[in-house]
């Protein structure tokens, strides 16, 4: 018997956290994120020093991942290591700050990797305020050697949080639909990867169509739509056991699933006899509750983070628009009133915004607005952009974008992109083949 997915993916953690935070006021080098486009903060990430064997190499790789994460956030500028005057030092050694300040560096990261045995390493880092000449935060972790990448993400989050004052989003994963083949016979597979595209793995083999995967609050399950035996239904994929379970037994197509914030329910649509309404199913007792009862299309539901409200799209008023209702289905109110059609609303992790897809005059847009429909801002556009998903800190959105296909039936590109909610830095996520329907995980459990 080969390893279960869980073992492969989550076996990596036996973290011993040893967090030491120095309470020095770091306001002088903090980034002010909410002031729009900011000048990236210059940081130096020294190669983590090793003690023996491959630890030097792992140290360099950890530094590289941290650097890519921080620079990719748009809030940091990594000073090239070739410009460094001083060699990397151990995190237990107080650096000579005058080696770093002339380069304009405001913050310095030093670290070390020690081989404990064949399978475990101890990774330590320290973040230094070069201006105030003091240390800000440090962390020591003992992990399986093959988990070095995850350690780099955890350290990135610590640095990001300390310097930006906002929570990080690097120790997260993306589940999405990997696409291949011609457009009229598209092969679609569930795939999962780290937020930076590494550790890519397929979860299904493409023998049946899969769509719209979404994470549970623990990141251990994925709910999605599968055309297994040509019956489109909602399933749950357990990453720990690798099992796929059919959710309930419904007379019609179930689709558009999402977990409730506590993870005890799935909210989804049921289409039967030409009518699509919104239902929940309690995962503990299998109780089904019907929330809407219209003769229209009510779909793409998403809970507010406090689970008190639900947003969804409906054509009950004639065209597809976004509506809000109480969690019991009462008090349905339309909230989108701009031009065009509005779809796929999804609530931000902290509740202050919803992201959506908008269609207007043969173009698609990704936008955000307040949950009362005010303050609409469009962030991205394209021939087809669809399906935004939030990074757990609510600062970044991911979605997919399809170019206008060339009319030869072959060439079309569908790719994953991410963008700051400021509307800056639209970046393609590199995947082995085309990709769509991304979903960002919550922060991974330690």
């Amino acid at each position, binding site marked *: 018997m080969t390893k279960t997915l869980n073992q492969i993916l989550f076996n990596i953690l036996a973290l011993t956290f040893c967090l030491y935070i120095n309470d020095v006021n770091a306001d002088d080098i903090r980034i002010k994120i909410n002031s729009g486009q900011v000048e990236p903060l210059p940081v130096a990430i020294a190669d983590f020093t090793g003690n023996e064997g491959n630890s030097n190499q792992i140290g360099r790789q950890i530094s590289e991942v941290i650097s890519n994460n921080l620079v990719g956030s748009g809030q940091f500028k990594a000073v090239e290591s070739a410009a460094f005057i001083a060699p990397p030092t151990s995190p237990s050694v107080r650096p000579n700050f005058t080696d770093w300040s002339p380069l304009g560096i405001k913050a310095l990261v030093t670290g070390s990797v020690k081989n404990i045995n064949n399978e475990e390493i101890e990774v330590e880092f320290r973040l230094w305020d070069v201006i105030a000449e003091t240390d800000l935060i440090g962390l020591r972790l003992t992990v399986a050697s093959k988990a070095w990448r995850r350690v780099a993400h955890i350290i990135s989050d610590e640095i990001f949080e300390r310097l930006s004052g906002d929570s990080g989003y690097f120790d997260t994963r993306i589940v999405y639909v990997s696409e291949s083949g011609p457009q009229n016979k598209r092969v679609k597979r569930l795939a999962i990867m780290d937020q930076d595209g590494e550790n890519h793995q397929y979860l299904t083999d493409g023998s049946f169509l899969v769509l719209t995967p979404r994470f549970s609050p623990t990141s251990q399950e994925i709910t999605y739509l599968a055309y297994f035996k040509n019956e489109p239904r909602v399933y749950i994929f357990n990453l720990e056991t690798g099992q796929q379970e059919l959710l309930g037994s419904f007379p019609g197509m179930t689709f558009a699933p999402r977990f409730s914030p506590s993870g005890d329910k799935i909210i989804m649509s049921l*289409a039967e006899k030409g009518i699509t309404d919104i239902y929940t199913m309690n995962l503990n007792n299998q109780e089904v509750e019907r929330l809407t009862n219209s003769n229209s299309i009510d779909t793409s539901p998403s809970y507010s983070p406090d689970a008190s409200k639900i947003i969804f799209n409906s054509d009950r008023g004639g065209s597809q628009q976004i509506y809000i209702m109480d969690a019991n289905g009462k008090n349905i109110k339309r909230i989108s009133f701009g031009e065009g059609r509005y779809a796929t609303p999804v609530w931000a992790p902290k509740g202050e915004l919803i992201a959506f897809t908008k269609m207007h005059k043969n173009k698609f847009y990704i936008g955000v607005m307040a949950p009362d429909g005010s303050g609409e801002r469009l962030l991205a556009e394209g021939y087809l952009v669809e399906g935004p998903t939030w990074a757990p800190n609510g600062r970044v959105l991911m979605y997919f974008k399809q170019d206008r296909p060339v009319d030869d039936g072959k060439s079309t590109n569908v790719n994953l992109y991410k963008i700051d909610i400021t509307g800056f830095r639209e970046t393609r996520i590199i995947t082995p083949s085309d990709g769509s329907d991304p979903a960002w995980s919550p922060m991974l459990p330690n």
Partner: protein
Amino acid sequence: MIKKIFAMIGAIALLSACETASQKVVSGTAATSSSSGSGSTSGSSSSSVDKKQSLFAESKQSAAEKLIAVGDRVLFDYDSAALDSSAKILLDAQSRFLRVNSDLNFIIEGHCDERGTREYNLALGEQRATAVRDYLVIQGIDPDRIKVISYGKERPAVVGSNNMAWSKNRRAVTVIE
């Protein structure tokens, strides 16, 4: 209103992952109950059964061809599941065919063009397939013979991003089960 439905948790057995260099395929094989030989061939491949099956397959094949000749699909306007008069004329002919071939069951597939969001289009495709189903039932076709399935925008008939392709993709197609 609360309905209770027992979750038939059909846990699909996970096939042992075949481990390759960097990518791992987990599961899926449960779904590869391929269409070939769906009739049981329990050991003794009695030739009469084979023959019957092949005759059946042959008649199914020719019925499928006839259905296409009669007209297997109706088209819809943008974001609409309404049957227009030409669609109804075609479905009248289709229902005559279905009455004659009373031993056959069939599936109505609802489809959309690409200019909509995925989940909304799944619902719209279901509306289109249901519109055809309801019309055929009114024409006297036994509802037990009809299944509907929506593919949303997942299976375009014509690849392309122009009015011609879009109009051909907004469709409901009747296929023999």
